[in-house]
């Protein structure tokens, strides 16, 4: 019994132990540097790999949703497709528009990728597996995340193309509008945990009552916060149905239309890294980070749980992308300002009520009614003045 627990502990901490073992061979003066390298390099390897896997998963999933095969030529079932895509983008010609602002044009994709990678510093991938346990970790996440907007603007402006400028303007308007609900829906968790440190937030969720975990998503305000956070995260990462900034059928590829070859691949990478990062943040805040969903499953290493949850959220992203059509600009803005923002503010209020009421059934009912009632009222308001009817096409038959 004890031995199996220790075994599980070893499996759980294997990467931490390996790092400690490697650090034993490093001379004292180089220790901080070596420690940093050993923490950062795995993240720099694992997440681009996840990006590669996700691209092929996404294409196959979308294909199946549309009753197609998806890529199935390169390698077994098309699993080598990302490799082929990577080689293609590396060998392609790098075209820079003649009237472009060369320096800014070059810096934009770099800034995007660097900012996307920086946010992984505060994401706890497993127990004791985080690059930097910052006091203000969540704040760091949102602060660095807001630099992405700047990269988007730089890309759109420096290309000197009307499509990229339009795309950049749309992207920034959308990102600023949805950043507020994103941050505000995360505030409920910060209130409950009483800390801005991601590690503390996860540790607080990694306890169990019976077999049930204490994830914040299992409270009315937590569920609402999670839903709001995921919607805002979809908008932040410019994914369908919020993909107006790069709507292929309207403005071709939006702000990165003038990029080609490797820089284009960097944009793609940065976008997916941003999506992973916000998903990982949602996991950290609401879904218990690396904690197992049931107390009897804790023997499975923590990092495996993290990646299982991450993959599940990525699947959800793909599923939503395959289902929903693109929003119109006014719908997008209406939704952000008339539903998301008031809803997240009310949600904070609900979290406060929850905090000050005595634990028990009454608290559950009161807060759930508050959240659901507000949601219903706001959605009625959103629907007002809109005729929803089955559309008939005159010449369809």
């Amino acid at each position, binding site marked *: 019994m004890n031995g199996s627990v220790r075994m599980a502990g070893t499996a759980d901490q294997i990467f931490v132990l390996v790092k400690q073992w490697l650090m034993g061979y490093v001379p004292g003066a180089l220790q901080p540097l070596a420690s940093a390298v050993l923490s950062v390099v795995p993240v720099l390897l694992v997440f681009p790999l996840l990006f590669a896997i996700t691209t092929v998963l996404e294409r196959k999933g979308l294909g199946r949703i549309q009753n197609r095969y998806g890529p199935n030529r390169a390698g077994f079932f098309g699993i080598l497709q990302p490799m082929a895509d990577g080689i293609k983008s590396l060998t392609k010609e790098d075209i820079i528009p003649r009237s472009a602002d060369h320096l*800014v044009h070059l810096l934009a994709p770099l800034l995007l990728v660097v900012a996307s990678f920086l946010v992984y510093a505060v994401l706890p991938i497993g127990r004791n597996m985080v690059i930097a346990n*910052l*006091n*203000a970790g969540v*704040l*760091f996440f*949102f*602060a*660095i995340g*807001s*630099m992405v*907007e*700047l990269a988007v*603007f*730089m890309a759109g*402006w420096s290309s000197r193309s009307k499509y990229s*400028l339009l795309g950049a*303007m749309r992207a*920034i308007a959308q990102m*600023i509008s949805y*950043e507020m609900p994103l941050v505000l829906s995360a505030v409920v968790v910060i209130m409950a945990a*009483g*800390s*801005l440190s991601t590690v503390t937030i996860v540790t607080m969720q990694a306890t169990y009552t019976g077999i049930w975990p204490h994830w914040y998503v299992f409270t009315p305000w937590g569920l609402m916060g999670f839903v709001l956070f995921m919607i805002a995260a979809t908008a932040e990462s410019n994914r369908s149905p919020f993909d107006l900034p790069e709507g292929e059928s309207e403005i071709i590829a939006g702000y990165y239309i003038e990029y080609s070859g490797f820089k284009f691949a960097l944009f793609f990478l940065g976008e997916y890294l941003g999506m992973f990062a916000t998903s990982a943040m949602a996991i950290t805040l609401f879904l218990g980070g690396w904690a197992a969903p049931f107390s009897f499953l804790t023997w499975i290493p923590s990092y495996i749980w993290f990646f299982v949850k991450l993959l599940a959220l990525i699947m959800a992203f793909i599923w939503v992308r395959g289902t929903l059509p693109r929003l119109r600009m006014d719908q997008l803005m209406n939704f952000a300002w008339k539903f998301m923002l008031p809803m997240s503010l009310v949600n904070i209020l609900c979290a406060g009520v929850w905090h000050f009421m005595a634990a028990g059934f009454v608290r559950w009912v009161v807060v759930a009614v508050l959240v659901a009632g507000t949601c219903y009222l706001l959605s009625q308001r959103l629907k007002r003045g809109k005729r929803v009817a089955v559309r008939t096409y005159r010449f369809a038959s």
Partner: protein
Amino acid sequence: MTVTFLILAGVTIVGMAAAMSLRNLVHCVLSLTLGLVGLAGLFLELDAQFVGFTQILVYVGAVAILAMFAVMMTRGAAQQQESRPTSVRISGVLIAGGVFLVLAWAMCHGLMTLGAPVQPEAEVKQIGVALMRSYVLPLEVIGLLLTAALIGAGVIAMEEKRGAR
């Protein structure tokens, strides 16, 4: 005087100076952003984590983007040549230099006598407690100010209705 400080100070000064002297307005805003990031780095160097991240969140995430939007929306004016008389420029620089000299002189004679620095603790929790206890009135006031600014900015920037003067 560490190497980090020197690098960050260099980045900040270069960014700010470029922001004030470049011709293209978008370049100005971009280099301003660089300077602000450098400044945030300096805040982090001074163990003020919360302030540093707030600086990035507010300035890079909001103010720089806002300035960018303003630049793009007043693009027609950006084409006009910047041609202030040389005398104005020189006198401006002279005044700024004079202010700097006075400040530097005051510094050299004033604050050398501070005690040895102790490592302060600015836990986010402490900041929160302070905001909610001793600084609750300023917090409310700033909340009010921000709300007023939000509404005011919206109203000012809103398109004037035709004939509604």
